[in-house]
């Protein structure tokens, strides 16, 4: 037993219910993958990543996978890969090994926070926050957005019902606050919360 125990902490309060909606942090292991030039030309990075994940890689502004194990497109030949938090210390190493020098792999578990918003009629929440057409978002979409000056990825896990946002951890409380304000407004407007 080590003399000192180091414990992980959540970025924001665990779960907030607002009207018929819930906002919570989903702890995830996360790593970035960016193909090196030499491997990109040969398509090696994508092939190896797809083989390792056992699925087709997502297209532009899309994600693949389910639940906590997702892979989403972040740029040309670039992806973010998430996994259950239990893999936080091994995810990057496993990816690195699987990609075998074809891509830069960087552990981003501590860098990004995933905030899940679930409930009915989420368009009313997100049309206050993002500039893109959130009503047109389909399950599997992964769009980059700036919310209150905070750079985010917005993943549509279920149309109008379940969104997952990723933001840099230092902004997590600020984004959490912005989400709460928008959710309260939408809930009040939809009559989900008595005045």
């Amino acid at each position, binding site marked *: 037993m080590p*003399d000192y125990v180091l414990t992980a902490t959540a970025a924001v309060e665990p779960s907030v219910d607002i009207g018929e909606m819930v906002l919570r942090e989903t702890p995830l292991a996360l790593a970035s993958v960016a193909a090196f030039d030499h491997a990109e030309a040969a398509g090696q990075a994508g092939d190896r990543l797809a083989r390792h994940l056992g699925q087709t890689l997502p297209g532009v502004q899309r994600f693949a996978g389910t639940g906590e194990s997702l892979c989403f497109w972040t740029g040309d030949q670039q992806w973010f890969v998430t996994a259950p938090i239990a893999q936080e210390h091994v995810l990057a190493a496993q990816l690195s090994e699987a990609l075998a020098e074809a891509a*830069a792999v960087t552990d981003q578990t501590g860098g990004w926070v995933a905030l899940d918003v679930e409930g009915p009629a989420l368009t009313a929440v997100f049309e206050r926050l993002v500039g893109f057409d959130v009503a047109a978002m389909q399950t599997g979409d992964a769009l980059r957005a700036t919310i209150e*000056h905070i750079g985010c990825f917005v993943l549509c896990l279920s149309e109008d019902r379940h969104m997952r946002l990723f933001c840099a951890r*230092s*902004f997590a409380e600020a984004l959490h606050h912005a989400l709460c304000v928008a959710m309260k407004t939408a809930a009040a407007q939809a009559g989900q919360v008595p005045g």
Partner: protein
Amino acid sequence: MTQVNRVDGGRLDRTKPLNFTFDNRSYQGFEGDTLASALLANGVRLMGRSFKYHRPRGVFTAGSEEPNALVSLREGARHEPNTRATVAELFDGLTAKSQNRFPSLALDLMGINDFFPSFLTAGFYYKTFMWPAAFWEKVYEPIIRKAAGLGALSMLPDPDAYDKGTLHCDLLIVGAGPAGLAAALTAGRAGARVILADEDFAMGGRLTMEAGLLSEIGNSAWLSATLDELASLPNVRLMRRSTVYGAYDHGVYGLLERNTDHLARAHADLPRQTLWRVYSKRAILCSGATERPIAFENNDRPGIMLAGALRAYANRWAVLADQTVAIFTNNDDGHKTAVDLMAKGATVAAVVDVRADAPRLADYPLYAGAQVVDTKGRLGLRSISVRLSDGSLKQIDCGALGVSGGWNPMLALSCHQRGRPTWNDDIAAFVPAGTLPVGQSVAGAANAQMTTHAALNGGAGAAVAALAELGVTAGLPDLPVAEDAPVAITPFWHVGEGKGRGWIDFQNDVTVKDVKLAHQEGFKSVEHLKRYTTLGMATDQGKLSNLGGLAVMAELSGKPIAEVGTTIFRPPYTPVPIGAFAGRHRDEDFRPTRRTPSHGWAQEQGAVFVEAGAWLRAQYFPRPGETHWRQTVDREALAVRRSVGVCDVTTLGKIDVQGKDAAAFLNLIYCNGFAKLPVGKCRYGLMLREDGIAMDDGTAARFAEGHFVVTTTTANAVGVYRHMEFVRQCLRPDLDVQLISTTDAWAQYAVAGPNARKLLQKIIDPGFDISNEGFAFMACAELTICGGIPARLFRISFSGELAYEIAVPTRYGDGLMRVLMEAGAEFDVTPYGTEALGVLRIEKGHGTANELNGQTSAAHLGMGRMVSTKKDSIGTVLSNRDGLTEADGVRLVGLESVDGADLPAGSHLFAQGAEKTAAHDQGWISSACYSPHLEKPIALGFIARGQDRMGEIIEVANPLQGGMARAKIVSPHFIDPEGERLRA
């Protein structure tokens, strides 16, 4: 019966009476009323005082174009001045007050202005207050400012919340009158995403205000069926109380939605108003038309209003402005008002029509070929003087006069992209021309389709055409049989008779005479006319007045109105509160705050925080008994030098650089060499801009042949990353390297002081050697702590002490701080904030953003020799240019206070006895502090030939704060210049 002028009918809910006050008197209205309609119902005609002359004024319109009935609503911090009573929806408990009067609305002492109109003509500011010049600032301007304006602000912060957002649609329809509803029905049924917005709280436009437009089905039946159907369509968004106030580039529109203004008590989470940015693929402007007045002497008395407004009050709000009314018109529409009012039981005392061939629509006294030439009744209309066609003058008693000079299409939004409207003789008005905003079309009365039949068909047709452009096929809906009487009008703008004032712009008190004066004085361009007379300014933006002014100018110039042209139309269409533009971004929500991993822990310690860009960093950690921040900072700094301290340095930028060309890439961005840095080592690096000026500095650590972590200053973290991406993608795409920010991924703490190693040895897992031999100065390693948690350790020092920076994945950042405090207790470990961090680095002579301020080169910083001549790197060539390297240029030096006086940062440096002028300025102080170690104020600064002037006493001038001190030039390394401590 208090509502003396209320009649039967209307679109009111009479089961819901509402109490309100106006100037502290209590009244009652009904749900569905506006403040204006409710006041009229209660027999209140006098609602305000005019801007310049303080003339008694009443409501003039029934819509957002209202120039006269401007009141202050609500009380306390929610007090809102200059609100149009015509669009203020009545609610129970509404308090309204008149404005611009003293002591009361009926008796206003400033009404004296009205007796000296010749002093307040067009341009009176420019003429009256010319002499003496010295009086302008001290005498005239304060008096004018006091007299100017209408309502007053509460001077309290706005307690309401505002919101903003973005909407997307295929088709935005502006205005829910007959044209807008027909368009929405057409597009909605075709499945297009439609937004139908109307500024009114009730949709329907003139369908709510007219009788019998839809002769077979009836206005109400079709309106409610249509609204029900639209509400049932999931692809249609109905937005009431929503004003589209501006048309911007690429089909973007500004829309203000009023959520709670009509509520006595709103839900705490509801924003008062929401500002929507609407992205539309196509837009149809169905904003209708507004009636225009005719100018004649004393045409501004309370009780005189637009004929269409008189009719609207009767039909929609069941209010007669007075029991006895008269009409003055130049077109057939005026006669409809007489008919509608008679149907509501009013006595029509006269219909005065300027046309000799005026039609007669009902049994009322008709005076064809006649003109209203004057009126009587100071606080409310009592009678009108009519010049009959035979030349005789007739007095006619009446309490209300409806004036109709024809109808103007509301085309403002069609012109927000600088479109110029064209003149249409058929309706004697400007109409939207072909130069519309991209994707916009115009339908209904806004497009000169002046009958209900034309509007319905125009709206539906416009929707079909707009959707066809989007590849959507839409069918025309069945439209009801509708009124289709042709427009019959004889243009008539002002009555020539009489020497008194005939008002063109009610809101700005501009008369026909003012326009004539402007013309006489050479202000003939419409834009000059506007500025000189103020015609068309303020909340109504000339909706009623512009055309009248243009007509008078056209007459004087001998040109047709079309040639005179209009002024430029600009957003907003109606006033938008500044609070709505700010939205949620106010106070602490003005911008997001970034929190460090130890933020929560620091809060528990009672830390004082400071903003560093978006970050909040602990500035210092006061302890009980410390009454001044200096005591705290001195203690923290000394504790580091004596034992060990911990500071959160997560905010410094971290950039992961990977790839086979990573070393070559770093060699390019840093002016000093990196290619040969061994794995497991850090190096201090200096980045230059292309122009040779120092950009940023920091350490880069090499974890593998192809893997570096670059550290930047907190301030430049984003800028350096952007610069590096630019270099990678644009300057050297041939280098195979990938970058990503890991600033947030790692919680990083400086552990500094003679006991730093001992502290870290307690938490680092066995098997990792961090002894001086095993882990020398500038070493770096990936290791584990506390039983397997991955960490990175860097032996670098910003304080000059034996020091490390330790990083763990950020989820463990809070935990690591707590562990360091616990493990360090035996060493009296001291958390220190940015203030002590600054003291320590100044004592050591380390530069930061204060020194790398965009004006200094490597030579200035005393690091000229770092710029490698053996390789190419960004900025190397230009760092050798004139002005950056000369021997007598400024150099970074240390400064010690000679007599104990502070050396404020920003002070300028002079040779002893030199005149304190710019010509003798030799440099400046960039950073300063009190050194608890040296027990005196010290500073870092730049001074000419600094390297050759060690020991010289100079003068430190601080003219801004009025101080003067003397300082000795010393090495910038106040502490341990040989670096023995940090290598210990």
